[in-house]
């Protein structure tokens, strides 16, 4: 029961953060966020329904077998440790290379794209590690 409550709480927090992120993104782009209430809420609702269906389907297919166990946590721990060093030293190396080839300033938009790519890669890697 405690787990269930925690799951619902986590879900609500993620939804709220995504909603705030959506409105904030529109505000940063200089658009009126109120115009995008329906697309943001609609997108979130659609995403939630698809996730819920996938979750139920997965539960039905796997029965009582848990998604995560001690070995999964160990693998994720190792993976995240590797990711930490790769991102730290990799980003440092990229900066040094860019500086050495004459790039002395970086556009914030490019940083946003870099972070987005990084998040996606780390997320996909974590999913693959979980399935091992």
């Amino acid at each position: 029961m405690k787990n269930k409550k925690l799951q619902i709480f986590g879900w609500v927090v993620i939804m709220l953060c995504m909603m705030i992120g959506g409105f904030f993104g529109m505000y940063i782009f200089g658009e009126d966020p109120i115009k995008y209430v329906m697309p943001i809420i609609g997108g979130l609702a659609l995403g939630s329904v698809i996730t819920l269906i996938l979750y139920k389907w997965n539960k039905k297919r796997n029965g009582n077998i848990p998604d995560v166990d001690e070995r999964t946590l160990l693998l994720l721990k190792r993976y995240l440790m590797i990711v930490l060093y790769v991102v730290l030293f990799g980003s440092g190396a990229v900066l040094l290379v860019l500086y050495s080839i004459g790039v002395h300033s970086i556009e914030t938009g490019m940083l946003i794209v870099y972070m987005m790519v990084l998040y996606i890669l780390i997320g996909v890697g974590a999913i693959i590690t979980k399935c091992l």
Partner: protein
Amino acid sequence: MRVINHIREIRQERVITQIKMAEDLHVTRQTINAIEKNKYNPSLELALKLIQYFDVPIEELFYLEKSKGE
């Protein structure tokens, strides 16, 4: 020295599937497979659960691989 186990043999003797075992021990099927292939050493908690599950003495389930000199 590597830890070797007889889980696969005992499981197959008792006609238990990996999925059934994973359900009973609350671990993933991949973990059962990794343990059987000696690729992953279970935690003490899981090792004790395995002993209880098969109801066999610990030395029958896990043992240390003997080196050449022994």
